[in-house]
């Protein structure tokens, strides 16, 4: 492998990490609370509120129904407003973060659904406040699921970040498209795709392992 390609790859790696990292931080800071909101406002739950639930659900669905390439372009004015530029990995992180937040919120919602309602009832009967139920019941009980969801989100973000090239975001996927696809450099394409495969495997495997370690539902 020539040194020029290696330098490109390293740079692309850094950009991918930057974009995926920002996307994941946004998922935790905004997607997790949004998923919790979707759950606790559901019928029969601790903060049942039909309007809040439907509104949150509608927003998440809208964001999730827009193809990422279109979201990328649609959010250009927002990116400009927030960052003062629409070019580069940081700028590409804005639409990535929005997509990841909506995606992760649904996964959080789904893993909260897996909690036995009886456990929530037991905490309610003991006089827990809604905040205590979130802190003492919902989060610890769904932790393995939340972590699995975060892993899935990370893998999706790696995929989405390939499209960030459209706004000059860079990253490993963008490298594969620019060199391998547009410039017919098959060798570069193969190498970058192999790098992506390894990256996804590492993320998925370590996510699974961490989630298994936290899971207390097995007997051993």
């Amino acid at each position, binding site marked *: 492998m020539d040194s020029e390609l290696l330098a490109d790859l390293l740079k692309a790696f850094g950009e991918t990490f930057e974009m995926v990292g920002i996307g994941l931080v946004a998922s935790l800071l905004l997607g997790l609370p949004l998923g919790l909101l979707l759950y606790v406002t559901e019928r029969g739950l601790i903060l049942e509120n039909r309007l809040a639930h439907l509104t949150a659900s509608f927003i998440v669905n809208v964001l999730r129904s827009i193809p990422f390439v279109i979201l990328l372009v649609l959010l250009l004015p927002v990116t400009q407003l927030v960052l003062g530029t629409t070019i580069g990995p940081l700028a590409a992180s804005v639409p990535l973060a929005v997509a990841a937040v909506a995606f992760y919120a649904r996964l959080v919602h789904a893993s909260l659904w897996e909690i*036995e309602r009886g456990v929530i009832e037991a905490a309610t009967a*003991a006089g827990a406040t809604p905040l205590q139920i979130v802190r003492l019941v919902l989060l610890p009980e769904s932790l393995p699921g939340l972590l699995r969801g975060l892993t899935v989100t990370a893998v999706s973000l790696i995929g989405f970040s390939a499209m960030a090239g459209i706004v000059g975001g860079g990253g490993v996927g963008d490298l594969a498209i620019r060199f391998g696809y547009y410039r017919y450099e098959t060798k570069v394409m193969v190498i970058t795709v192999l790098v992506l495969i390894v990256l996804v495997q590492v993320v998925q495997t370590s996510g699974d392992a961490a989630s298994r370690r*936290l899971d207390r539902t097995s007997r051993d």
Partner: protein
Amino acid sequence: MIELSNVTVRFAAGVEAVKDVSLNIARGEVFGIVGTSGAGKSTLVRLINLLQRPTSGAVRIDGVDISRFEGEELRAVRRRIGMVFQDANLLASRSAFDNVALPLRIAGRPRPEIDARVPELLKLVGLEEKARFFPAQLSGGQRQRVGIARALATSPDILLCDEPTSALDVETTASILALLADLHRKLAITMVVITHEMAVVKAICDRVAVMKDGHVVEQGPVYELFAAPKHPFSQALVARTLDLRLPEKLLDGTRGRIVKIVFRGQESLLSDVSRECDVRIHLLLGNVEYIGGHPVGTLVAGIEGDQPRVERAMKYIEERAEVVRG
């Protein structure tokens, strides 16, 4: 101590789970609520800690109507009421210790107090060795013991038990019932026990309410219910637990008039009737149970003698016990 007056619960679909129920549960007693599934028992018990709000009527604890309580006021009441569930409802992600500690954390008790109190509670239910175990590593009976320890963590005045033994096998059921009876003796706590098993009522309850289709059709001391059930539904419930069936073949070969006698108290009834009326009694089948220390017996016997004597004997028995079948 707990008083429900004219309580009705109507769900959104228009179904009435509890219909105009009035109950009075005294301090320190074990009160059973029995009925088939879907009778509204679980809804009824959830009224006491307001997991279910009444559509109409009042729920009073120590004379205070709590049915409109909200927020902190409601949570304060709930901390005085422990609850045990059919499936224990433990946090799968937390050890036995942390599960028992949950109500203490909710109540905001300081760490040293929790560290001292939880081992005490685990000892009380016989699980001091299992503090570090997770629910998946415990048996059904052990999980229920953790659930009971958790319910008692904040030293509540009232313990609600919603089908505490229904998910357990016969032996485990017996040990959990023994534990509940033991705790009741030690802590003098007021207990409300929901069950569909008459055996549970018989084992630990002082008084009982029978529920059918959202109504309480009968209530009173457990002994009264078993000895003289008034409502047809309670009669059927009791008959199912006390009923004795005789093989048909045996009936064919028996001499004398066959009677089935349900008696309470008079243990010498058969020898009395034999002596008084000069008849021979063939005891075919019998069972005597002691409920709250009083005998309730079911006997199937053949009465042999000449016609007038048998008639006199039948009358004698009918005056003193319930003859189910002549």
